[in-house]
C-alpha cells in the first residue's frame, strides 16, 4: 500500500495548503505526523531577496515525487501516507515553496520519512530557483548536479544545502 499525494501548484492557480497536507496523511491508526514547510526567505547569502521564481519540469518532477514516495514506503512503510507539493512560478517573500508531510503509526518513522522526502526533493527533483534581489538583479541558484548519478535513497548524504 503506497498512499501518496504529489502535486505541483502554479502560484497563478493556488497556494500550497499545509492543512490539506495534514488531513491527507491522517488516519485512525496513525499517531505521528511530521511536516516540513519551506518558505521564501527575505535574505540569501546576505542579499535582500524580494521573491523567487521556480521553473519545474512537471512531468519528470511528478514521476520523481512518486519514486520518492515509493522509496519512503520501502524504508518506513507499509503504514505510511506521504504528501509532497511544490510551488511553481513567481513567489513573494513568505510564500510557501514546498510542503512535505508524512503520517505513520509512530513518530520516528514520520520524522525520518518526512526528512528523507524533503532531502530527495531538494537534491533530485527537476526544479530550478531564480532569486530576485532588491537591487533589481536576478540569479539562478547554484544547485545540485544530476550528472553521473542516479537518484538514490541516500542521495542527500553529505549535502548541507
Amino acid at each position: 500500500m503506497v498512499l501518496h499525494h504529489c502535486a505541483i501548484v502554479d502560484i497563478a492557480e493556488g497556494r500550497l495548503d499545509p492543512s490539506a497536507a495534514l488531513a491527507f496523511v491522517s488516519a485512525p491508526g496513525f499517531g505521528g505526523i511530521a511536516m516540513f514547510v519551506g518558505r521564501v526567505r527575505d535574505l540569501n547569502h546576505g542579499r535582500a531577496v524580494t521573491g523567487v521564481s521556480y521553473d519545474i519540469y512537471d512531468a519528470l518532477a511528478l514521476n520523481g515525487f512518486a519514486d520518492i514516495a515509493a522509496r519512503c514506503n520501502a524504508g518506513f512503510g507499509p503504514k505510511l501516507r506521504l504528501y509532497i507539493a511544490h510551488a511553481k512560478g513567481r513567489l513573494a517573500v513568505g510564500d510557501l515553496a514546498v510542503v512535505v508531510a508524512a503520517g505513520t503509526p509512530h513518530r520516528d518513522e514520520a520524522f525520518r520519512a518526512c526528512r528523507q522526502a524533503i532531502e530527495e526533493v531538494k537534491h533530485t527533483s527537476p526544479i530550478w530557483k531564480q532569486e530576485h534581489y532588491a537591487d533589481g538583479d536576478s540569479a539562478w541558484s547554484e544547485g545540485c548536479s544530476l550528472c553521473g548519478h542516479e537518484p538514490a535513497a541516500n542521495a542527500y548524504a553529505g549535502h548541507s544545502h
Partner: protein
Amino acid sequence: MKIEVKLFGAFCDHQPDARLELELADGATVADLRRALEAHAVDHWPGLKPELLAYSAFASERAVLREAEAVPTCGSVAVLPPVSGG
C-alpha cells in the same frame, strides 16, 4: 533524426522559448546529444558559462539518462541544469 530538446532554468536566459531542435545521427547516444548541444551553445549562446552544460544532465519524462544510453526517439529530451528546489 530530429530531436526536440526542452530547456530549463538558466538555459532559458539564452533561449527564452525554452526549446530547441537538434539534428542527430540515428542511434545517437546521450553523449552525442551533449556534444551537439555544446556545439550549438558555442554558435548561439555567447553568454553561456560552459560549466553549466558540463554540470547538466539529460532526462526523459521518466528518468535521468546515462551518457551511454541511446537518445529516446519518441517524445522529447530535457537538459537539466543543477537543481535547486525546495
